[in-house]
């Protein structure tokens, strides 16, 4: 693959989480998910206990990816903001940096304008964190070890039994 592995450390996650928590408080939204464009969940904040965040992350990324293709067909490079409106809950998605998506789930206790305002502010700050992360990543980071692959092989035999 051409891209490096995405490696995120605790201190970065803490920064991101603090940022997301502040955004949630300001916008009075329910929860926020930070998702990689490939569908990996990076972090989440707020009331996510009742949500299948793994599946949600994959679907949000898929939704964003298909919208990107739509954008391309109408002559845009990418739609930076996406909004799904439901009866009670709504989702606001916005691009963070060049490879992450910030999804904010909110209900009628707040407004789309508030969410948009705070999400935009948050995305700018998160973009800076990711830019820092990218620089660090290209400088070199610890990867998976031989032992990890070997142990995984043993685990596979246990789980995948016909």
């Amino acid at each position: 693959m051409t891209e490096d592995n995405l490696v995120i450390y605790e201190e970065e996650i803490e920064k991101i989480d603090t940022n997301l928590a502040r955004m949630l408080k300001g916008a009075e939204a329910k929860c926020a998910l930070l998702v990689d464009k490939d569908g990996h969940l990076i972090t989440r904040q707020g009331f996510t206990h009742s949500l299948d965040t793994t599946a949600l992350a994959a679907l949000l990324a898929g939704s964003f990816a298909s919208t990107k293709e739509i954008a391309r067909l109408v002559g845009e490079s990418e739609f930076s903001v996406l909004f799904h409106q439901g009866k009670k809950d709504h989702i606001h998605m916005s691009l963070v940096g060049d490879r992450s998506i910030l999804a904010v789930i909110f209900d009628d206790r707040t407004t789309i304008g508030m969410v948009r305002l705070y999400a935009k502010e948050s995305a700018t700050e998160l973009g800076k964190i990711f830019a820092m992360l990218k620089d660090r990543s290209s400088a070199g980071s610890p990867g998976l070890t031989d032992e990890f692959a070997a142990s995984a092989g043993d685990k596979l035999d246990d789980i995948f039994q016909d």
Partner: protein
Amino acid sequence: MVSINYATREVTCKIVYYGPGLSGKTTNLIYVHKKVPATSKGKMISLATEADRTLYFDFLPINIGTINGFAAKFQLYTVPGQVYYNATRKLVLRGADGLVFVADSQVEKMDENIESLTNLRENLEEYGYNIDEIPIVIQYNKRDLPGALPLEELNAKLNTRGWKSFEAEAVNGGGVFDTLKMIIKLVLEKAKNTRTTTTSAARTAASPQTAASAAGASVPPAAGTPVSPPASVGTRQEAGAPAEPAPIREPAYQAKPKPRPDDTSAKVAAPSFEQNVPPDEAPVTAPLQPASMADISDSGAAAPERPVAEEVEKPDSSMPRPFPGSTGRIARRERRITVSDFQPAARDEDLSALRSRLSNDTDQLDNAAISSLPSPSMAPSERVVKKKRNFFKRLLGIK
């Protein structure tokens, strides 16, 4: 690319099942979903048409357990195989760490297999990936069907790059796990080679773990595991969760009750305000309680004036107005009293001054009353108004 999250202690890889339509990609995932223990799998999501053909992708997250303190998670995706879904098929390929090419072994499907393989190479190239670098396993599915081509022929036509290949009957599960195990191994090996930098990077919480795994030869694998939580896809209990400050999760919902103290204080204040209202009204109503004319006339001349003036300023529109200048039955009674009460006093005063004052008063009262009338239907006729005015003029000798 592989995602390594040190905060949640997760390693996540993306594996994509590729191949022509109806070759059995979704069937592979369904079998894995059926056989993997519930603790090791998440919910399978299928974005399919009504005819159960994959429209966008199928998604199945599996968790093979904790290795060196990290939960190893694999996200299995399938692509839509049909030719005209190439746009969405390409999207699913993004960020794939490994591929399983599911080929249909039937002789009549050989062209479709070759076309799909060509399409795979093209789509990978569009993302800038090299088909020779990405881990790929080829699965010859539907081996149980009578029209299946011999393995040698399939290998010769499809597996020109020397990928690992497996025979499979996805419906019955034959070869499904062998294929999956192999691709997972290849993906992890590839990930290891992508980033084999030394683990001595001084990272706060990550360093003990990575150091332990780096010295894997001397340290037993179990050394890392006590630190790590029992991770599963269904119930996510990451190491990061307890470390999260408690107030962070709450504020969105805690922010709401804040206005309540203000509301209650407002409610407390409101009754006190309401309680203040009756005392204000009390002086107005209290002198009116005695119905007899004698009592009222005894109460003095100065007292009635104020209530009349107040009544004119604050007309009660809900009450019927018998004539202009009156704002209700109470005011009318007041008015009658004041007129009779003024008579003796007027004799002592300068008559002209009283006349001018009364004529001004009647004009003002008329104007105020007419402007505050609720509706035209409630207004007395012009004739009645004129008659009343003339009565007063005649009474006081005003021309």
